[in-house]
């Protein structure tokens, strides 16, 4: 494996996203949404203005869980199939690079663009709010940003996997949207439905482990268990064993969610 080749490919992807203002647009979306939530998130309760970092993060988690997977899937779904459909893939593959280097280079370049816009977007929010945040709160917010990046990288990995399976861009976009529906909307409903239908008799003990099968849930747990005040806001604390809620363990699960789809993509793309 030649790092130089991977860096060249990643660099092109990253600068493409900087130049076409993708990074700027996504960062702005994050900043605007986060500020709106921070200041107006409590409007339903009759209050306006920044309340607490716990409350803000809890609201942001709900936003990020919808938005980041969608953005990541849109960013990566045509990474390979797009090159193939445009007709530029053959020329790339005739270069002295391996298919794995091409895949990894593309992933890393897109990942850098996504991470950069996430950190810039939410980082700006942290700067705006910094007067109202103490060190602990900043630490929590930093954890939230980091986990948002990991969530994005996991879904980007899924997107790149889709881009190696789909026969054309249209199908790839369909598969990406289906993945979003499944992980963001359907998965939790299925689990809950399963619990309710069985009257909670079966699956109660494995329920927390099943949550690990969805990177969006891993993200939720990561953030909610970091905040004592928030934990009680969600019923999750009652079903989720403390031992599983170690940040490093959940971080490892996220890392697996990043590596596994990429591995499948590499297997699929090897020929």
């Amino acid at each position, binding site marked *: 494996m030649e790092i130089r080749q991977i860096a*060249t490919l990643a660099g092109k992807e990253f600068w493409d996203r900087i130049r*076409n203002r993708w990074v700027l647009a996504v960062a702005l979306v994050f900043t605007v949404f986060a500020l709106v939530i921070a200041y107006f998130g409590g409007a339903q309760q009759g209050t306006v203005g920044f309340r607490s970092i716990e409350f803000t993060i809890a609201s942001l988690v709900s936003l990020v869980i919808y938005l980041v997977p969608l953005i990541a899937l849109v960013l990566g779904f045509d990474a390979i199939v797009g090159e193939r459909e445009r007709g*530029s893939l053959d*020329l790339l593959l*005739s*270069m002295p690079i391996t298919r794995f280097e091409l895949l990894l280079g593309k992933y890393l370049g897109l990942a850098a663009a996504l991470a950069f816009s996430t950190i810039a977007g939410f980082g700006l929010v942290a700067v705006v709010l910094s007067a109202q945040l103490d060190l602990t709160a900043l630490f929590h917010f930093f954890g939230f940003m980091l986990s948002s990046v990991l969530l994005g990288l996991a879904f980007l990995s899924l997107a790149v996997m889709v881009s190696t399976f789909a026969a054309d861009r249209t199908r790839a976009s369909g598969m990406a949207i289906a993945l979003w529906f499944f992980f963001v909307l359907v998965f939790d409903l299925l689990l809950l439905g399963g619990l309710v239908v069985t009257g909670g008799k079966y699956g109660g003990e494995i329920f927390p482990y099943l949550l690990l099968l969805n990177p969006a849930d891993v993200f939720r747990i990561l953030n909610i268990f970091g905040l004592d005040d928030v934990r009680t806001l969600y019923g999750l604390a009652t079903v989720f064993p403390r031992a599983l809620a170690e940040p490093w363990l959940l971080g490892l699960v996220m890392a697996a969610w990043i590596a596994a789809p990429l591995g499948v993509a590499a297997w699929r793309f090897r020929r």
Partner: protein
Amino acid sequence: MADTSRAPAERAAPVIAVRGATKHYGAVRAVDGVDLEVAPGELFGLIGRNGAGKSTLFKMMLGLIPASAGDIRIDGSPVTGSGFRAVRRKIGYLPENVVLYDNLTGLETLEFFARLKGAPASECGPALDRVGLAHAARRRVREYSKGMRQRLGFAQALLGRPRILFLDEPTTGLDPEAIREFYVILRGLKADGVTMILTSHILAEIQERVDRLAIMAAGKIQAVGTVQELREQMDLPLWFRVRLAHEDFHHVRAVLGGLPILAIEAREDHVAVECQRESKMVVMQALASLGDKVLDLHVHEPSLEDVFFGFSD
């Protein structure tokens, strides 16, 4: 029939060696048992209509499509082997209908490919100049015409001083002037010993410019050789177009009567005589014996076009 699968007077190991290369897509045999050798420094042409299998064969030779069967070696290395990366550094490839990145400028495009090929960035400017795009170096490829894209694609193929060039329909979209310049560059590369294989369906364009050529149809190589060898292999009849001083058609017919000719007929202002290649000299001597009765004489050799369509049909 002469053994024309080997380059004349060349005994060095072939740079491109294809044996029994086959590619099926389901029941379709896109490439069907192709044998081909290209010698070091040779300029080799691959001719065929669209869909003959040229581009598929090209992609197989570059290791982009795995062969269903057969063995393909470039510079001694199997194209599917792990050692092929080193060979790729010596290869320049211009795909058919090259697609580059619209959002990059011409110079940025070359810089990107130069980095991948491990070529110095300082090669990019001169490469653009070489294909006549220096003036458009900082314009986005999006604004390029089809011909300019093709030239940029060619400049890309020249990065890293390749020793082997694969050019798939390289003159598509070029105007006649640019085509001439393109072949001037190829002559320069040939003088430097670069091995080149190019495809075309414009026969007139390449028949005087390549050392040897192969005719491909329905996934198979139908014939390989120099233009002359192909003509001989085909054994196409040739025509004499004889202009006579007087209405001496009957006289001419009488003179040629005993010779192995295929046809003779009087046309408006000349007499047309058709014969096999091996009878050419006999017929010519007979016509010469007519002395000043003959005003003018043209020999019509079959064109490569005739050869090509003869094989392809």
